[in-house]
């Protein structure tokens, strides 16, 4: 059981564009890693399918998303609220991926932010990538499958 790139992108579009009003554009062939401080939301799926969903973007874009969710100016959003907002984005994307895969359980999200970091989920491999441009920066959602 897997999720195609188009299915993953459709989920991302439903969350970021249809619900949060932020358009995204496919990013094909370009570097899907943004520059500058980054932030990653991670959520784990289990029960019939084991794996993880990572939502990666620049902190600038996450702050803009949070500003929309909180209905505040981007500069006024607290750092903790930016992380909360991205966690909820990961939750919504992860929940819909879970439904596509027929899995039964979804973890609570975790969020990591910083200038240089890598989120590594031991024992997993990259299954599907949705890379896109969001508010001028590259972003991506990764679907990792557990190899256990």
């Amino acid at each position, binding site marked *: 059981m897997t999720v195609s790139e188009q299915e993953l992108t459709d989920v991302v579009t439903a969350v970021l564009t249809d*619900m949060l009003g932020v358009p995204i554009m496919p990013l094909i062939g370009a570097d899907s890693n943004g520059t500058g401080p980054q932030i990653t939301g991670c959520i784990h799926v289990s029960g019939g399918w084991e794996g993880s969903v990572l939502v990666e973007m620049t902190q600038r874009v996450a702050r803009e998303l*949070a500003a929309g969710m909180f209905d505040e100016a981007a500069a006024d959003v607290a750092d903790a609220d930016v992380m909360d*907002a991205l966690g*909820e984005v990961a*939750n919504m994307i992860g*929940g819909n991926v*879970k439904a596509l895969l*027929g899995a039964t359980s979804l973890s*609570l999200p975790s969020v990591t932010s910083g200038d240089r970091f890598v989120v590594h989920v031991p024992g997993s491999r990259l299954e599907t990538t949705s890379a896109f441009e969001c508010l001028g920066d590259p972003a991506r959602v990764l679907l990792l499958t557990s190899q256990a």
Partner: protein
Amino acid sequence: MKILVVDDSKAMRMIVKRNLAQVQGIGTLEVTEAENGAHALATIEEQGEPDLVVSDWNMPDMNGLELLQALRAQGSAVPFGFVTSESQASMREHAIAAGALFVLSKPFTADAFQELLSSVL
């Protein structure tokens, strides 16, 4: 109308509150928030029952289903609905069987939110 919004995400509570304020026929709105099921139970005990509980499902310290079951076990018939990323049919059936009025899947559009809430209020 007094509504208790329960979600571990502050951002999602804000979105739900904004959408509630736009629901036609809701009248004067008073929204209280709780960040998980245990907090929601404590809030209801302190402040009395609301007219409606709108709850997430996946939360630490008592999830939404556990909250609904706890309320019903206490004899509460408070109207209760889910706004959740748990979108599978089996979860929906489970929620309705436990006494939920509605299950709205995340992500949702403002129109879908308002149409559903207008129909149940």
